[in-house]
């Protein structure tokens, strides 16, 4: 986490990523089983996490925050934002779309917006994203996802109308 994040333009089409996400969907109980085995077997977990890191870093500039927002940001990673915005973009975007901090690079949230718009998924941008757990850096976000730990990272699409609650009811808190 000590590296300085720079906006990363994701590789791969959103359609391809959505297809991959459908394959890896946690609704399939197989993945839950895999996750439990991985967690119980540290050497396997380490190997799996390393593969995840290599793949996701190449595609998304992933920094292994352990709680993946990609499914609702059109696969543009918010942790590559220098301000780590989970609800971007900030107000410092230059008129040409450059990042406030790295003027030669396009704002990653602008990329997310444009990609979401092209897919008709602007509704995802309306969600409110909750604060992340800073202890999860380095963990496998896939394993966390499969065991259902990041179910409430973001709200429904109707957040703007609904004024949702940040805190979850005690039963649902991890």
């Amino acid at each position: 986490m000590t590296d300085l994040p720079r906006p990363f333009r994701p590789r791969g089409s959103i359609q391809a990523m959505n297809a991959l996400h459908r394959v890896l969907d946690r609704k399939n109980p197989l993945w839950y089983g895999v996750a439990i085995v991985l967690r119980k077997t540290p050497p396997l977990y380490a190997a799996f996490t390393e593969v995840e890191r290599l793949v996701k870093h190449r595609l998304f500039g992933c920094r292994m925050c352990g709680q993946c927002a990609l499914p609702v940001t059109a696969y543009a990673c918010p942790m590559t934002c220098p301000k780590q915005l989970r609800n971007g973009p900030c107000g410092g975007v230059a008129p040409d779309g450059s990042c406030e901090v790295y003027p030669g690079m396009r704002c990653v949230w602008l990329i997310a917006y444009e990609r979401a718009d092209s897919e008709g998924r602007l509704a995802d941008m309306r969600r409110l994203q909750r604060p992340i757990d800073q202890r999860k850096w380095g963990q496998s976000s896939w394993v966390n996802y499969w065991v259902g730990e990041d179910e409430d990272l973001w709200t429904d699409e109707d957040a703007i109308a609904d004024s949702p609650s940040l805190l979850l009811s005690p039963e649902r808190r991890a």
Partner: protein
Amino acid sequence: MQSRLNGVKHADSHLQAVLQRGRFAVTAEIGPPRGANIAPIRRKAKLLRDWVDAANVTDAQSAVVRLASWAGCLVAMQEGVEPVMQLQCRDRNRIALQTDLLGAAGLEIPNVLLLTGDHPRFGDHPDAKPVFDLDSIQLIWTARTMREQRKLLSGRDLKPAPDWFIGAVENPFAPPLQWRAERLGKKIAAGAQFCQTQFIFDVKIFKQWMRHVRDLGLDKRCYILAGVGPIKSLRALEHMRREVPGMYVPDDVVQRLRGVPGDQVAAEGLKVCTEIITEVKQIPGVAGVHVMAFNWEDSIPEILERAGLSRRPVGVVVNK
């Protein structure tokens, strides 16, 4: 004046009262000094007291170390000016942010402006560690949670719970333009009750943003104060265009300022600001104006007077 009712330490925001009554509100900014001296803040507060409903005390603006916002807010209150404490996410994690919010509530600072903040790259300490544990939307959301659910992010109870009039900022001029009204919507959903915009020099784009804001019904849920400010010199103009993130000065304003002799730029800058205020006052959904005159707070009374915004009745009663 605060009351403790039902386990909540109620804020008594004059700014909120003015806005609720439908009066056009005026806020301004006080920039704290770079030194261990509160006298400049006293002077600026005294200067602005009759002209504003509340004054923001900025928080390490542009990532430059200055005297703390909360300290400046206390001084402002002593001088009879209701403060707006600014709090940004760049320098503090969620522990410090909630700590400072509680401090503000305890000190009876009634208004807070919650923002992400400029990256350290711009300031005098580019070698500092950027924190950004929360973003502005999460910070606003946290403040609302503390007030309404009376809990910290940890789930622990707050006794008594704090209360503030919660503000956000929005920049109608930064890409993606079509998204900027909805982004304000997200801040409102998180808990923003008022909004101060980034500097307006292009009224046309601002009008478009306001139209979109009204279409989404956001002006009914949040009081929008139009951000304005005078440009003092050509050097200040260049600084704004190059160094201040999110600042957009259109060509016609630039030409106007460059078209007058050097010693008249300040006067022209003041005129431009006054004209913009006069225009934005007429836009439906604009509830007030927020005047930012960095290092030139002395110009603010004249700007307001010329824009037809008269002195405010002194509304803050401070029992200190």
